[in-house]
């Protein structure tokens, strides 16, 4: 169903922008083709970046299964990462086939520079790690909240992150001052920056700066998740909630 939801939202965006580009050739540097390509990759990245670690951890805690995972010769975070990665790769592949198929159907060709594609893959891997760490922090709240509250919190925060990542409108539409602030926050590196790298809208030094900021955020969140898990684990009752 999430895939069908993505497809439905994509249709809405395509209809909206299709209408607008009947009367304009360009909006904020985007042509119709650029805009549709942007949203095709938003929908692909939405699947890749949508870590479900919070839900998994919430289930384990509420079913009293966390202890079972803690005695395995693998850290719980690594366990959740491998479990989540399996789902994300499969979901991502299906999205790539469907949405690139749509792109090909609409424009008859798909062409990107090889260096752009290689950098895009690097950004996608890093943005997944960022997304996973954010989800793991949410997961730690499962020690205090019930699964449906975790689901609502996940939905609410994801919605905000998705918006700040450029998933609803490209960041270039945001007011100047918020664009400046977003440069130093992790969100735009989840969606907007990888697409800009792929489409060649940012190049050279800008890519380097983006990579540094992204890596710094991943390291910061790695430390934060480690500390927060140690703190929140004290609330674990082992028998479920």
């Amino acid at each position, binding site marked *: 169903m999430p895939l069908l939801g993505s497809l439905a939202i994509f249709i809405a965006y395509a*209809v*909206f922008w299709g209408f*607008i580009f009947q009367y304009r050739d360009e909006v904020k540097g985007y042509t119709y083709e650029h805009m549709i390509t942007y949203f095709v990759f938003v929908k692909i990245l939405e699947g890749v970046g949508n870590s479900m670690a919070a839900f998994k951890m919430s289930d384990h805690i509420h079913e009293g299964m966390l202890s079972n995972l803690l005695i395995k010769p693998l850290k719980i975070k690594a366990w959740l990462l491998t479990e989540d990665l399996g789902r994300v790769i499969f979901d991502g592949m299906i999205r790539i086939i469907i949405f690139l198929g749509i792109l090909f159907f609409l424009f008859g060709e798909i062409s990107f520079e090889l260096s752009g594609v290689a950098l895009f893959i690097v950004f996608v891997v890093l943005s997944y790690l960022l997304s996973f760490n954010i989800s793991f922090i949410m997961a730690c709240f499962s020690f205090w909240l019930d699964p449906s*509250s975790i689901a609502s919190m996940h939905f*609410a925060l994801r919605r905000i992150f998705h918006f700040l990542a450029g998933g*609803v409108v490209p960041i270039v539409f*945001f007011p100047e001052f918020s664009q400046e602030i977003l440069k130093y926050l992790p969100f735009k590196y989840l969606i907007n920056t990888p697409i800009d790298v792929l489409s060649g809208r940012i190049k050279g030094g800008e890519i380097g700066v983006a990579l540094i900021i992204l890596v710094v955020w991943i390291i910061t969140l790695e430390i934060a998740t480690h500390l927060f898990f140690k703190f929140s684990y004290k609330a674990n009752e082992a028998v479920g909630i």
Partner: protein
Amino acid sequence: MSKYARIYKIYLKMNLYRFLIYRNKVMMAFLANVTYTITFVLGVKFVFDELGEVGGYTAEIFIAYMIMMQLWWSIHTVLVRKNMQFLAKAINKGQLDFYLLKPVSLRKSLPVISVRFVDIIIIIFDLCAMVLLVDFSQFDYADMLLSVFFLGVGVAITYFFVSVIVNMTFWIGRNDFFTLLIGELAEIVQVPAVFFPPVLKILFTFFVPALLFAGPAVEALWRL
């Protein structure tokens, strides 16, 4: 009639207690709705700051349309979706007889069996958002009444549409997919009818009437 009034009262009371017990859940669900509203209002504002007016729609009208869609969604969740899902589940689990054997009409008690009070709070929030973000002094009372009437018609259309789908459960077994499809339809028609190409407009008006859910209610206000 008093028999049904008593039944309605009991069901509503039951659902109210459930709502009061799971307060955290309610708060989080409310928060999720608030973030949704804030992000789409900002998104629409950013885009329309750049575009001005599109197809007769300004940022204000577009925001009103999206809030009306949310209102429709919440009202349909309270009155239609949850109860129809309940009915489909009863058919799937073989529990329909249990309800049919009772000395009350299932169809008449269905609207209150599974009322989610959190959606009623969300309806109030959506109404407040509408009042805050839309200048109502530009409309006369007749337009506003017509708008409320069209919103009611939109919910009624959804009721009949979902009823047909849920009744298909008798023949095709589990069809949760189709009931969930209504949610996806709502995503597609978060863009008003005027933006749709003619073929899709016909499809979503006459065959799958999704453009009638909330669109006419907004069009009545601005006489679009």
